[in-house]
């Protein structure tokens, strides 16, 4: 029983990070029909920029309270990632909006590897330990079940961000413009929506979420390096597809579900396969889910749009 609850908690924590990243994918996909392959690497940039800022602050003002430090680092990471998202859209994707289907995707892959390479040049190849500004001493709400304050913060913060995003999309003017653009580009622009600005805005919001997710991800595992964005990026994409790509609620649901499946899977795979496979196969669950969803229910769990792309 303790294992069950423990795996549930672990799954929920990582799942909410996936959900945050998945939102970025799903927003861009909903509007442009483009898989922004480099989204995972924006996360990596966010985590590493925050790391750099924290290091800097620790050197400059050692007496600063850790929470303020974290807030500043987050803010810097968010701003840098927003700029990055904006630049990416402006320089690479905008010109390819009417290009043949494979072109934007190949470009996105190129951007992803370019970001990794640049990060490798700046931060080197080695793994960096991530400063733990929120306590990692585990609490024991139930005997044998451990939760760290970091994990609690992650779940609460991502829930808050998701609610914020839902409000932004559903209640504000720019949100309405986003929905209109997602529905139909041309018609939206005929109605006076500046679609270029809306698309840029979408990229920027997605990148900001990715920056936060990056800091969370790195804090949760206590480690950051140049290639850290790839796997969570892929998994978040899976989550977005699982929930129904283009659908915000779906991305959240998919993220949490994927986190749970992965966590339970990693916990029990050894029993299920009689010791043949162990938890080092954790990463294949996402791919298997992705394959299954795309084959049997390409619209995802909550996707109402009939996807002509699948």
């Amino acid at each position, binding site marked *: 029983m303790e294992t069950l609850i423990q795996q549930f908690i672990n799954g929920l924590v990582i799942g909410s990070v996936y959900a945050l990243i998945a939102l970025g994918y799903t927003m861009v996909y909903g509007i442009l029909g483009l898989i922004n392959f480099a989204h995972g690497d924006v996360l990596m940039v966010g985590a590493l920029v925050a790391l750099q800022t924290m290091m800097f602050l620790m050197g400059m003002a050692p007496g600063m309270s850790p929470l303020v430090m974290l807030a500043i680092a987050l803010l810097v990471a968010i701003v840098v990632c927003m700029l990055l998202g904006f630049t990416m859209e402006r320089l690479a994707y905008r010109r390819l909006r009417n290009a043949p289907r494979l072109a934007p995707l190949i470009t996105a*892959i*190129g951007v992803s590897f370019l970001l990794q390479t640049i990060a490798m040049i700046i931060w080197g190849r080695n793994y960096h330990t991530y400063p733990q500004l929120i306590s990692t001493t585990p609490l024991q709400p139930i005997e044998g079940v451990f939760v760290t304050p970091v994990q609690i913060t992650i779940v609460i913060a991502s829930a808050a961000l998701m609610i914020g995003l839902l409000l932004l999309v559903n209640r504000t003017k720019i949100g309405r413009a986003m929905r209109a653009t997602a529905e139909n580009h041309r018609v939206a622009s005929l109605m006076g929506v500046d679609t270029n600005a809306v698309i840029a805005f979408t990229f920027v919001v997605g990148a900001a979420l990715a920056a936060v997710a990056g800091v969370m991800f790195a804090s949760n595992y206590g480690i950051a390096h140049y290639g850290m964005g790839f796997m969570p990026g892929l998994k978040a994409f899976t989550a977005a597809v699982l929930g129904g790509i283009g659908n915000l609620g779906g991305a959240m649901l998919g993220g949490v579900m994927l986190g749970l499946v992965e966590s339970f899977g990693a916990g029990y795979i050894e029993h299920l396969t009689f010791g043949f496979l162990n938890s080092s196969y954790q990463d294949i669950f996402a791919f298997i889910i992705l394959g299954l969803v795309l084959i049997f229910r390409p619209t995802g769990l909550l996707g109402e749009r009939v996807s002509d792309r699948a």
Partner: protein
Amino acid sequence: MNELAAAVPWLGKRNPMAARWLILIIAIVAPFIAWQFGKSWVRILDFALLYMMLALGLNLVVGFAGLLDLGYIAFYAVGAYTFAFLASPHFDVHLPFWVILPLGAGFAALAGIMLGFPVLRLRGDYLAIVTLGFGEIVRIFMLNLNYPVNITNGPQGINMIDPINLFGWDLSRNIQVTENFTINSLFLYYYFFLLAVAASIVFIQRLQISRVGRAWAAMRDDELAAKAIGINTRNMKLLAFSLGATFGGVSGCLFGAFQGFVSPESFSLMESIAVLTMVVFGGMGNIAGAVVGAFVLALLPEVLRDVAVPLQQTLFGHVLLDPEVLRMLLLSLAMILMMLLRPAGMIPARARYSHDHHLSNKLKQGGAK
């Protein structure tokens, strides 16, 4: 060869025959020139030929059939590991090369069909991600299948793989012709690989203009229309995947035997992307493009390694960008810039069976009236 000859600048259009001979001469003389710069350059040429074969195979899938496959390197891995299993002390099996080669190709083709079936309904971006996942799954298994039964030997990989042995002729041995003249084994491998690549080119060229190739082109340009005119798109897709995979498997076999050592590291996503970049760089859907792309992008990082590292030494006093970083930088920039500036590649495909071609012709005619 025709397309390749036509791609030779200046000469290709005027005198295709001369261009053909020129290519042949360059291909034969290349290792001798490389030898002047050192033994390692011949080795690099050998690897370039393997990459060429990979690029040709991937071009079949991506360029001809329009299915973006990001897990292509998995088939290379299947070929290489097949060879490693069947010709190394790991399981203590030593089958002859001519037995393993078709086996490796067959297993890769089978893997291609296994990948093809579930993704039949997917297109474009979804397909790309699922194939990427497939490649990663294969890699994860290669990394972890050393427990509880040691099959792949995990991250260490398998070494001491038997060299290629053509009916008793061991390619890994230098041939001592006279006292002070030996033919290095790297040359033997080079010419053997060259033959393999040439055979692939001929095969693929015949394939492209065959019924199958035309069906692929139709499917790539408009799947719905292709279906409507009676093309069995399911079979055509499976055929594309399995044939593409076969090339991957064959070059994997050659790679395993040539290098004598395989490990999961050689089959990372980066390699899939590298091969894709070669195809994109040269020009999708074009044999000459794949060959030239593979040649340039396999050689360029090595040239950079030789030029850029000492240059940085003298300029900054230390190496700022190591060769591996340079390679990644080069590949990713090549991919982005090609798509933005020259999406058809260095050598755009002559779109004989392509929708766009007919359309533009029609427009031209319309304009003339």
